[in-house]
């Protein structure tokens, strides 16, 4: 069954929304007193909040506010930079991700990531999607084909590329590349998907496709998306966190953040007074 045929289920949207954002929803991340330094520069200061399961959490804020850094801290990709120091904890599945015992391979398999600039590997379309399953030990050709087809269908790319799976992924358009990167991420079967400004390098039509995709994906995945585009945050997210100068200013349901922010700085930002 392809995505195109899917009928949206007609239930009371408001009711569904209320149910989803209610406090009974399980937390996928519990961030506690998280601070982070690049060398001597403090990038995050005492961040605490919880990310809800199977919802879209948007992180907004002006450039340099630490939102991307925060996102990369969730799966510890931030450690690829030199001289990073952290304090506090991020609890995921009852485990502190900073625990030295944590297996980064498992952590990053469970927490997928999509980057700002589409970054397909210099391999074929097929091999891009199959990369994750292969490194995690799937050798069976038939199964790989199944996974690739399924993931490409999930992101709505299958019909566009099914006849040229062996072409280089770099031959795709920017928007297609980004959806391929999402498919590649899905193939590892993550629980959470982190997206770092996933549409900022795309044209409006491709952006809309990716946004629709995010809304579909939250049925199955918890999604954290960093964006500098407030309309986007308002459109796609259930919860929004507003970051400023490395601090979490406000975190609430998206509708409240945009209609009735509690903090003056949030209000100034969402009404476009700075940033």
């Amino acid at each position, binding site marked *: 069954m392809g995505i195109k045929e899917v009928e949206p289920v007609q239930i009371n949207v408001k009711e569904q929304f209320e149910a989803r954002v209610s406090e009974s929803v399980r937390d996928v991340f519990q961030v506690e007193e998280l601070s982070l330094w690049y060398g001597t520069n403090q990038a995050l200061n005492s961040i605490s909040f919880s990310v809800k399961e199977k919802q879209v959490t948007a992180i907004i804020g002006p450039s340099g506010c630490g939102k991307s850094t925060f996102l990369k801290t969730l799966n510890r990709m931030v450690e690829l930079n030199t001289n990073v120091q952290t304090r506090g904890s991020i609890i995921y599945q009852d485990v502190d991700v900073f625990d030295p015992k944590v297996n980064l391979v498992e952590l990053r398999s469970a927490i997928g990531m999509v980057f700002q600039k589409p970054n397909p590997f210099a391999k074929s379309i097929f091999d891009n999607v199959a990369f994750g399953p292969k490194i995690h030990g799937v050798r069976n050709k038939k199964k790989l084909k199944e996974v690739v087809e399924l993931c490409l*269908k999930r992101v709505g790319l299958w019909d566009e590329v099914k006849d040229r799976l062996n072409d280089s992924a770099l031959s795709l358009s920017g928007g297609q590349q980004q959806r391929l990167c999402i498919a590649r991420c899905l193939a590892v079967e993550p629980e959470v998907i982190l997206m770092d400004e996933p549409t900022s390098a795309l044209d409006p039509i491709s952006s809309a496709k990716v946004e629709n995709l995010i809304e579909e994906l939250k049925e199955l995945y918890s999604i954290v998306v960093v964006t500098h585009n407030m309309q986007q945050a308002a459109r796609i997210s259930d919860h929004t966190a507003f970051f400023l100068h490395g601090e979490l200013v406000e975190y609430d349901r998206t509708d409240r953040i945009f209609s009735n922010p509690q903090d003056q700085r949030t209000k100034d930002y969402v009404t476009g007074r700075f940033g």
Partner: protein
Amino acid sequence: MRLPSLKTNVESTQSVVVTKQKLTQKSFVTNLGDYLMEKLFLLLGTLAIFILLLIVGFLIREGSDALREVGISEFIFGQSWYPSSSEPRYGALPFIISSVMVTVGALLLAVPWGIFTAIFISEIAPKRLKEMLKPVVEIFAIFPSVVLGFIALIVISPIVANVFGLSNGLTAVTAAVILSVMALPTIISIAEDSLNSVPSDFKEGAYALGATKWEVIKNISLPAAKSGIIAAVMLGFGRAVGETMTVLMAAGNAIDMPIQHFLGLTVPDFLTSVRTLTANIAIEGSDVAWGSLHYSALFVVGMILFVITFIVNLIADLLINRQRGALRND
């Protein structure tokens, strides 16, 4: 039913939820593999340090016999080298002086030549000409030294003999000329890099004040690139003093002190046949008996050579870093 779930369609994973256990459990095999690869690469990465230490250690070990028996001062200040005589003498001073003479002579030619060429390529030449000149410098760098030595032998040496009225054209001057060709690509490319790294806003500021192109080069580019250009000269020195084949073929290789007395002063004689440190190792190293005192003495000569190039390269290194630092801070 809404969207097809990946997780129910793909049987590869048993459990959907990532468990605490799975997260904190490291696969022994995967980790061992990764650990071993990392250690292997660490070993290969540090290879350069080990090789450098090995070379230094080996020169000292093999040279220690001669150092003990002959003494360091005899090596550096002794004026005669007769390794096969019944009373062998191991004074390397003629070689040291010859090496320095030939190298300095080469630099006297190569420094202006290289720096003016670098200025032309970096600052004056239009873009297309620049693109054509860069390969020229690269081809210079790949010319095998033995071919240049051959050219010195058949072309330069007769010219030197004619001009100065000598019976034999294989002299320090001949070697210096061909050695300048050898040092040229090093000097051009380092000096050019250094000029290119001068930020363009330095220059634009001066142009805005109405300076001519040459004034900008003289007052802005050259002073800013000074450290790098001196480094280029140092590296050129290192390249030239360590060069073997060209001097071996061009300098004549006589083992006497290359000096003459002129108005009561002792001055280096550029029109005589000389033997450099490198040439001496090449000549005697190919048939020396292993383990003999002579063999050990050659390692002392190698040590002297190593120390000279080490110091010169170290200074060049410091200068290049200084320019990088200075330009970054501004």
